[in-house]
């Protein structure tokens, strides 16, 4: 299929666009696969320096992110809270592999698909669920909701709601680290949709020019909302780096070991050179863009194909094969996580909503700010 088809579908694509149901089942994509996964790393956990305890922690973290969101979706469907709910399910290897590879004071900033990032960086299941419920005990005191999980103390600067809008903030975090001569790497995550925003390009230019210690990392999950990557962005995403002479890499995001390996190497490089990276981590989102997405833009075959590569199942297989865990131990982790999530729901349910006085708090730093009335 030719790229021109993006604007004026020709041939088969045009026919299918005109009457997608006529030929029975739609092809997985009008063009190509949602994302082409690069080969996963061949390095063993031992070679990567990962010990059994770390791997079990990573596994538990991924299960927690998954189960937290599944129950969050259920709570949303029960009407426990409203607003947006963008699920990260399928992408857990990215957050998990990254945080395992980074130092604790390396900075992370991301967009609105941010629950997983919160859970791997200091937001407890309780604080996260309470934030979804809009409760005072939430990580952002119920003022942010699903899109604005944060734990700044642990260098997780939060999720942001304007596509691409947080990318310059990431540049600024790195700028401040360099200005203050702090040995910190900033990782600025974004979705594939953000690659098309001018904010990325302005920031990449300055980052390369000013040698900022930052990694711009695209979590390419195949779709910007409902538009396939190949229908919204020309060429390969990683090619954006070429125009800025920026170091770049493509990573298999369905394999937590691959993410870990790549992030470990690149973070070390940033620390050594203070030069930015542009990284495309290819992954897949199992769920719709948000709760009201009927997902007509993709079909079950594609979903099943990626689900067969599920990052949690993959790590579980490693753990069992390498005899690092028994099935019983795995089951125990699932049970523990289930308890943790159900406890988080109970906590969120029982937590108070913010006092009305909180409405005027956190707008300004000063103790008695003036509000226009």
């Amino acid at each position: 299929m030719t790229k021109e088809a993006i604007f004026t579908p020709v041939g088969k694509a045009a026919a299918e666009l005109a009457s997608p149901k006529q030929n029975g089942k739609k092809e997985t994509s009008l063009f190509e696969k949602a994302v082409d996964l690069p080969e996963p790393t061949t390095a063993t956990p031992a070679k990567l320096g990962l010990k059994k305890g770390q791997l079990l922690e990573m596994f538990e973290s991924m299960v927690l992110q998954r189960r937290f969101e599944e129950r969050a979706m259920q709570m949303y469907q029960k009407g426990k809270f409203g607003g947006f709910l963008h699920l990260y399910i399928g992408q857990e290897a990215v957050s998990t592999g990254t945080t395992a590879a980074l130092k604790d004071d390396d900075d992370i900033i991301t967009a609105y698909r941010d629950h997983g990032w919160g859970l791997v960086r200091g937001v407890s299941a309780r604080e996260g669920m309470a934030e979804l419920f809009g409760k005072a005990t939430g990580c952002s005191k119920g003022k942010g909701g699903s899109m604005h999980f944060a734990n700044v103390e642990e260098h997780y600067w939060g999720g942001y709601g304007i596509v691409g809008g947080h990318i310059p903030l990431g540049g600024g975090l790195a700028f401040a680290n360099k200005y203050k001569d702090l040995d910190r790497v900033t990782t600025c995550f974004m979705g594939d949709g953000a690659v098309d925003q001018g904010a990325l390009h302005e920031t990449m230019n300055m980052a390369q020019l000013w040698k900022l210690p930052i990694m711009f990392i695209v979590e390419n999950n195949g779709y910007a909302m409902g538009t396939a990557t190949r229908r919204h962005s020309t060429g390969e995403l990683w090619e954006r780096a070429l125009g800025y002479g920026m170091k770049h890499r493509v990573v298999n995001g369905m394999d937590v070991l691959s993410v870990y390996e790549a992030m470990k190497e690149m973070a070390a490089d940033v620390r050594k050179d203070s030069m930015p990276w542009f990284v495309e981590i290819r992954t897949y989102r199992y769920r719709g863009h948000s709760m009201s997405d009927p997902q007509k833009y993709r079909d079950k075959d594609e979903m099943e194909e990626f689900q067969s590569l599920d990052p949690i199942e993959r790590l579980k297989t490693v753990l069992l094969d390498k005899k690092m865990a028994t099935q019983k131990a795995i089951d125990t982790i699932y049970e523990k996580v289930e308890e943790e999530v159900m406890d988080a729901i109970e906590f969120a349910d029982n937590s108070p909503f913010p006092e009305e006085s909180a409405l005027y708090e956190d707008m300004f730093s000063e103790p008695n700010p003036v509000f226009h009335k």
Partner: protein
Amino acid sequence: MAIKVEMPKLSDTMEEGVLAKWNIKEGDTVSAGDIIADVETDKATMEMEVFDSGTVLKLLVDEGDTIPLGGLVAVIGEPGEDISGLVSGGASAGASGATGAESGGESSASEAVSETANEGEAPDSAREAANEAATPDPASESFDPIFGGLGSGTTESSDAQSTTASASSVNGRVKASPLAKKVAAEKGVDLQSLQGSGPNGRVVIADVEKALAGGTTSPAAPAAQASTVSAPTSAPEPAPSPQPAAPVARPSSGSEKVKVSQMRKVIARRLSESKFTNPHFYVSVDVDMANVVAARGQLNQVSPVKISFNDIILKASALSLKKHPWVNGSWNETEMTIHHDVHIAFAVAVDEGLLTPVITHTDQKSLMEISAESKELAGLARDKKLQPQQMEGSTFTISNLGMFGIDEFTAIINPPNAAILAVGGIRDEAVVKDGAIVPGKRLKLTLSSDHRIVDGAKAAEYLNELKHMLENPLAMML
């Protein structure tokens, strides 16, 4: 443990969903994450997912059923588990759809959903109940609406509220700048007496200052002022503002400040409220009084007390009210009251203003009784000896300015009455009778009605009834 499967919220705005298609049947095994049904929401057809694993014990709704958010649609659990506690009523909930949320209410989650669903209603009805409780029933009001607390020491609260009364609000709108209004009120300058020098005749501070300095502004016109001051209930409708005339240099006679009495404050407040809250409208009728004049002459030859025209109008009004009960009503926002008793108040001019004593059960009293009672009440009013209870409970009011030489006027309704009758003087007028011009006796009656309760046709019917009764006074004896 059996787990309830409920209608999920599948879009931000969804309130109910149609279970379009079941992918499972009873006895099937499901795992968390399985798509068990298709649901049509307000936006799209969405997949319904199950969040727990187990055996499908019961499907409670049929394909095509509409289920509210949180409504129970299925139960999963261990095979053979007793779920009668969960589904009793649940099946009917599924079938009827509409009651699903309530019958699913045994689980805390469903309760939460139905709470959400009812959010719009429950507090509202609670508020309504509170409003009802807080709103006084006019029939049970123990005070006269105009002079309620007079003499009983309870007017303090109304004092506080009465400070906004001003010449401009009671006597019609005067265009004045806010500052001019404030200073005029403070210094006791009557804005109506000033000619505004601002745009469109607006009274500005310079005009007020000029007046205070004894400038060219003329003081309030005494005659016109006197009538409005002495009888605001029957105050004529605001005359058009005096047209700015070419200023003529005349020596000023100055002005004086008069302290506002308690009675004036109450009059100002109550009548402002009435005039600005009740949508007044007016209907007038001209009555041939020849028969009444003749009848009164005959009556007074036999009656030990002198019967006045006013007594006859009171009686006729009362009898007419019995036939037109809406005019004898009260508006109270949430409900309207029709009073089955007729208690007519009548306005009595006194030095400081006016009072409205009440003749209770006016319709049941004879002209002699009405005459005696009205004379006594008027005397007590003038001597300031009227007791509060003698001014309470009116259902209708009559104001008569006939004795002041007024032909016709409109009056402000005395709350919570629905109407007030303004009675002019009997005029000697040439009338055409049987083709010949003969001397006649005519009377103009004007009814002010609260349009919220009395419509134009009702007012007209009442007034025609009254006209008929006065033109045929013998009817009163029936």
